[in-house]
């Protein structure tokens, strides 16, 4: 009886560790069957005409809002949940989820302080996590070669 209880406990702990690892996973390895990220773009502006990020770059002067675009390299029919994890100088800032409708080719958004103050200087990095139904955990997305995930405020 004790050994069964111990086994269940070990499995439970492993499951918790697995989910915890996925939440903060920052390696560029991921789930190949999920949609790889083909491009990430950062910018300070926005094109209304075609709904794309404008004034793109990797380094920005002090500014209160940075826009971003994440492109997927395939379109999958199903809805999926994405968690974006933001770090500055390798320190976790926050994470936020968004539900992606089927047929979505890209997501666009903007990161900023709630009170509108300028972003602090440093190197910002975005990580994309997918929610996996089979494990009920978030897994790191796979990024195609050369995809940039950083921008710098200097």
């Amino acid at each position, binding site marked *: 009886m004790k050994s069964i209880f111990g086994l269940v406990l070990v499995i439970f702990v492993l499951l918790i560790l697995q989910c915890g690892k996925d939440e903060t996973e920052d390696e560029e390895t991921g789930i190949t069957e999920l949609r790889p990220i083909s491009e990430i773009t950062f910018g300070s502006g*926005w094109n*209304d005409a075609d*709904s794309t990020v404008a004034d793109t770059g990797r380094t920005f002067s002090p500014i209160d809002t940075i*826009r971003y675009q994440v492109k997927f390299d395939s379109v999958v029919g*199903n*809805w*999926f*949940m994405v*968690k*974006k994890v*933001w770090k500055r100088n390798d320190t976790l*800032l*926050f*994470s*936020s*989820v*968004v*539900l*992606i*409708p089927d*047929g*979505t*080719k*890209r*997501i*666009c*958004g*903007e*990161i*900023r*302080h*709630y*009170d509108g103050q300028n972003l602090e200087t440093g190197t910002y990095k975005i990580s994309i996590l997918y*929610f996996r*139904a*089979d494990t*009920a955990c978030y897994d790191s997305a796979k990024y195609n070669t050369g995809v940039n995930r950083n921008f710098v405020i200097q």
Partner: protein
Amino acid sequence: MNRVAIIFSLVVALLFADTTATYFWPIPGGDKIVISNLGDYRPETSPAHFHAGIDIPTDTVDYKEDVWTITLSFRVDTIIHKDYTGIGYIVKVQHFSNDTTKELSHGSRYIHMNDIEPDLQIGSVYIGDLISYQTTFWQNHLHLDYRRPHSLSGSNVINPFVLPILQVDDTLKPILNHLYVDYSCHGDADVENLNFLSYEFDTLYGDTMGGGITFTKLKLPTESPDNDLDDPHILISGNRKARFVLGGHDNFYSTTDRGAPYELSLFLFDADSLGVRQKSYYTLRFDSLLGSPDEVHQEEDVYHVSAPLISDIGAPQYYRLYPCDSVISGLPGCVITGTAELKTEDLDEGMHRIKIYAKDYENNTKTADVHFYIRKSDWVDFCRGFKE
């Protein structure tokens, strides 16, 4: 009882001498129109109550109609004189099989007739008889409700639309006017417009205040399929505890009639072990009402009856999309089929989306999507998907 009716009833009885039951529209030759249905809220009466049946308008020529019971054979169980009710005669009948040999499990009640057939006797069984001949009506309509089991005190009121003969043409979708975010009575959240990228969501219609409660009123415009830019977008901060109240109603035949949507439901788009799906939280459906205590007390479970959103007869009416205290404390939620509470305060930081369905008995469905960002940190990351 008039001679024609007697002859007719005898002929019908001969033709249908069996243990099945034949059903009729209660106003012969009249248009199958209703102007109110089960669940329509009636706050003007004391105590306020759900409407227990359907209202059928009279013709507009002389406002006189014959009234039949909805089954061929029936026993009169109750007659309440119009001088006592002040709203016309009340006649309650037990349904029988056509040949009167079998007592059925249901009965019906007819209200508002200014005259009834003088020889109707309590306890007598009739075949194919009128209960009222060319009568006028209190407020020019017949009220009909359908009960099962009939014989019990406090019997269930069943939605009359379950009987095909009582179903009416209804081509109009329910109306969803506004969504109200209750962030002060049931929470202490901050609610504001969520504008991002270049999208200015003209979402907030302003606050509605009174009685110490504040709601943020959101526009629910005509929804375009696959276009989330016409949906309300809000940012919820503070303690993030907010609850939703819907302002809306149902139409049946014209925009002047008013009723309760047959079913209202609240879903959250969520991800779990079943994948991304619409997870059901709160559903209310007007299938039936329990006995009189529930008709009296359950309105606060469904309708918002406290200031500043006080449901009134007509439109819109205000429906809670969360369990209220009486449900939590164990009173039966006779029309509430799903009582899970959407706790916005427990959601992950980020963008979320709810969907509200309002459906009538003919399955005409109106939906509304509402997007909201739950903010827990000092940061925000507003985001949306694009298909091109």
